[in-house]
């Protein structure tokens, strides 16, 4: 199955800029469906970016993060061709992970 995670990591030699877009409903638990039943909360709780075995960025999210979440950050120390590992876990225990090449 295709990954839920799309990542673009680009290095300018010194700083690597990372943009990630993840497919996830991020249901808040406050929204009702067409029949008036509450859609249970279902959201990513933790999103981790690892480089060289170390976390370079960790997001702890609540249900107020938008559907199909987007995040952007940048870090030092990586170079073109290196691997960046991305993984998430949601409040139901589902997970996904991918590895992106830094460009």
């Amino acid at each position: 199955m295709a990954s839920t995670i799309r990542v673009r990591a680009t290095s300018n030699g010194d700083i690597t800029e990372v943009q990630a877009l993840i497919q996830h409903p991020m249901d808040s638990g406050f929204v009702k469906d067409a029949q008036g039943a509450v859609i249970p909360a279902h959201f990513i709780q933790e999103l981790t970016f690892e480089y060289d075995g170390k976390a370079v960025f960790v997001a702890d999210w609540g249900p107020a993060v938008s559907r199909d979440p987007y995040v952007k950050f940048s870090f030092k120390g990586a170079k073109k061709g290196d691997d960046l590992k991305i993984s998430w876990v949601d409040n139901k225990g589902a997970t996904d992970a991918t590895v992106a090449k830094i460009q």
Partner: protein
Amino acid sequence: MITDNGFPATRRLLLQGAGLVALFGLGHVAFSAAPAFAAANDKYPEDAFKQKSDADAIKALYGRTAEASDKVKLDAPEIAENGAVVPISVATTLDNVTSISFFVSANPNALAATYKIPAGTMPSVANRIKMQQTSNVIAIVEAGGKLFSATKEVKVTVGGCGG
């Protein structure tokens, strides 16, 4: 990949266990003599995400209060036409930043997202969050063990939490 139901009870137990550990972790922070920071822990800050008001959420997450700082640059729209997707970003010129968090005062639970910033990572984050209604958005930067904040009101035309 993502299933909607049928999770075994053990998993729920595990999650509850994680929540308890988070609570104990926070208690430890509150009572320890040396300053330790909840947001620097590896645990998911379950308790902070459950708080309703921004003040309670900040207290649960960091155990202290923030001071406003013009070194925290919060970028948010004046008017958000769609409260379900409000692009918010923050950057700072402060040194030794260890975490950045976003709070929406008028949301059912104020804490929206918190980011750990290890050494070597830039103190700058962009993301997209939901806003139920017009509200103050607060960005908090934890730097050198202190909290610095920036606040901006975002007017919401169509809320992003209700049905």
